[in-house]
């Protein structure tokens, strides 16, 4: 099911193959995430539920992912889900304008975070997992205290819906992206804007942003079918990745560092794309989904990718053993 794009230097590249398809959801899957310890996979869907799966090692015999828990309680579809660093809690961002904190093991809701005045689109824990940052269609980014559920700060982030938020490695910075074409970097302690990054001429809506593992670069996905890697301090982009389709939806991408440095992204042409980070060569296109692939996640330690699509399914891809 996987097609390998021939490339000169790919002789050492072991292609990923489709390993498993899960179709537990009744509507499109909007987001998939692996827990930081790699034991769980979570998926969020428009059917108002989140599901977790426990991840078993890829021994080629047993299925990798087994359904674990179902989290229901939201009144509308869910756009994003994230694990806390110790994988004990899950936060979900929903169209019912709230975020919910859940206990990952038992599936029970713990807290509801209210304050946004429009759909909450994205959410993430900070590495210390004492704060949650969320971005919403109400054009703000909010920082919440996990213990009390209070909204600690409201950042007047953008002039269009905020499409993605991410913390850096030590939790001191937050990056946010929006359809207004800007990416802004904020100091998470004071809530003040530190930098704004923008593509000068074209200014396409930014659908996704994420910090690199060392926090010096950000991976920016824009609705002109391009992914760029920006250097934050110089405010210039240094790599461009293209070949995929992304002009309508908020497709997410990820860094894959377990097996050579790669960029993995979903695409509206129903495939998962993988590029080599430095050479920008397209390494592989994973085919199998029947609808645009909205979200991809890379396992923190194993060579495993999970993808969620509008076709309501989640597919797990692993390297051929």
């Amino acid at each position, binding site marked *: 099911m996987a097609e390998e794009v021939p490339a000169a230097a790919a002789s050492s590249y072991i292609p990923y193959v489709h390993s498993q398809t899960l179709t537990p959801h009744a509507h499109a899957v909007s987001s998939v995430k692996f827990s930081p310890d790699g034991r769980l996979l979570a998926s969020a869907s428009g059917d108002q539920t989140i599901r977790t799966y426990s991840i078993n090692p890829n021994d080629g015999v047993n299925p990798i992912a087994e359904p674990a828990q179902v989290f229901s309680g939201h009144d509308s579809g869910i756009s994003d889900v994230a694990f806390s660093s110790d994988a004990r809690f899950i936060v979900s961002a929903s169209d*019912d304008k709230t975020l919910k904190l859940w206990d990952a093991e038992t599936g029970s*809701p713990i807290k509801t975070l209210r304050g946004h005045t429009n759909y909450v*689109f994205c959410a993430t824990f900070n590495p210390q997992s004492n704060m949650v940052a969320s971005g919403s269609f109400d054009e703000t980014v909010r920082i919440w205290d996990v213990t009390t559920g209070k909204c600690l700060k409201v950042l007047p982030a953008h002039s269009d819906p905020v499409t993605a938020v991410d913390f850096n490695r030590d939790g001191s910075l937050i990056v946010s992206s929006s359809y207004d074409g800007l990416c802004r970097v904020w100091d998470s302690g004071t809530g003040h804007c530190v930098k704004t990054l923008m593509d000068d001429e074209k200014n396409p809506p930014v659908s996704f942003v994420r910090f690199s593992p060392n926090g010096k670069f950000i991976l920016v996905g824009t609705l002109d079918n391009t992914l760029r890697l920006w250097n934050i301090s110089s405010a210039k982009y240094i790599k461009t990745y293209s070949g995929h389709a992304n002009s309508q939806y908020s497709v997410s991408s990820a860094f894959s560092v377990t097996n050579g440095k790669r960029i993995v992204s979903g695409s509206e042409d129903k495939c998962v794309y993988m590029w080599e980070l430095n050479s920008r060569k397209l390494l592989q296109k994973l085919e199998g989904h029947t609808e645009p692939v909205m979200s991809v996640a890379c396992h923190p330690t194993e060579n495993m990718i999970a993808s969620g699509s509008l076709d309501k399914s989640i597919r797990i891809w692993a390297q051929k053993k």
Partner: protein
Amino acid sequence: MNAPIIDPLQGDFPEVIEEYLEHGVIKCVAFNHRGSLLAAGCADGSCVIWDFETRGIAKELRDNDCAAAITSVSWSKYGHRLLVSAADKSLTLWDVSTGEKIARTTLQQTPLHARLNPGLTSPSLCLACPLSSAPMIVDFEIGCTTLLPVYVPEMMPDVLLAPQQRSKCSESGPPFSPAAACFNKCGDLVYVGNAKGEILIVDYKSVKVLALVPVSGGSAVKNIVFSRNGKYLLTNSHDRIIRIYENLLPAKDVLRSLEDLGKNVDGGVDGVEKLKAVGSKCLTLFREFQDLVTKMHWKAPCFSGDGEWVVGGSACKGEHKIYIWDRAGHLVKILEGPKEALIDLAWHPVHPVIVSVSLTGLVYIWAKDYTENWSAFAPDFKELEENEEYVEREDEFDLMPETGKVKVSSVNEDEEVDIETVEKDAFSDSDMSVEELRYLPAEPIPDTNEEQDELKLIEARISASPASEEAGQNGHVADHTPSPLGEMGETRGKRKRKPSEKAMELQAEKAKSSKASGRTVREKSRAVGDQEIVDSVNGDDEDDVDAYY
């Protein structure tokens, strides 16, 4: 790591009260190594640890045996343990992450000040300064206390050895003036400041005085504190002067250096003179700070995290003044708080933040008065210090139709990019072999059912639409409040008259309306033009979306 991006030009000391923390009546505060947690001791014997980032309570340490006011709190180097001294003469050692008591011991007198050895990772050794006797080393594991020498008698040829093992020390000198003491940075030496105005450098393991530094003026030393990097020592004396000394001893292997110094001193000199000679090689007076106008006593002086600033609180009752000097000796700021006496002060190890405790038990957080950095909001905006004359190019405003601005991408995309290596943390000390306890895991407090209903009712009342009261009928709140901005909001608000008809109205509305709105969950499509989004009510709307699209 973010040093290059954050503006380095902002001054480094706080200016205004940002917030205050309250939890009973606080008596003393201490930051952990990174400043991510703030421990505070209360008047009722309990300790509370705040998560300084969220300003929420992370942990409470309560000991049922101890109901007396806490006199001091002290963190271990990596933040795993907390030492608490209380007015009932006890010292308690807590394990921070579990919140359990590790050890507890009772002394002969109330310790005013207790400090854990900063050199050990899991210290069970601490320095306690009681109200009216010599400072002592308390070892929790062995369970013994060792009194440290406070005076060096003039006549003795040899160095005085203080009696050991739980006996009261019979030293000369006034019995009631407390001596101040502190560990040096690596914890092998104790610097004792006594009532005669001398600093003694003591090796606590052998209980020997290794050097003596007389403080000019000869008045009793009330506080003695090291800077975080161990390079500077501060003494607060009864003559209302704060003195800064530069530490000449090397950071490592201090004992050996002192021994060598001792040997190098001239042969003829002996006893006290010898100690003084050695002492002069250990510390040199750097600066003196005093307020010549008001001649006030100082309380709780300390260094800033980087050692650049010295801060001291005014000990006058009825005023809450904090003086900040730079190390060169200039008074840079006086912070004035509410009219309550100041009882404790701490400077954040990393950020320009000061925490002060007032007599009423409130903890005030002083931070910089931030002026928004507007240039951060626009990517190519450059702030100028003063007006610059702009001279335009000859052809700047010429219209050149043929040459469209084809900006050739001058980016060399083939360069290697490293996304993984992280620079060493500027604030970590030399050896980080032990995992530091930086944060206490956050435990979300579950919402109770009453809270949920209450919040929903409040939401219902707040929402702009007049029909919101009836929303409760459906069993859940139908939030049809559009965002307050924008023209569409009001028209839509008027259309929604009754919640029971809302679903039908929405369908009709969507069929009519030609404006695409980015409201669907599944597609996450881009909001074209109109920002006002009809709020989704319940799941069955999703079927409508199919028809809509």
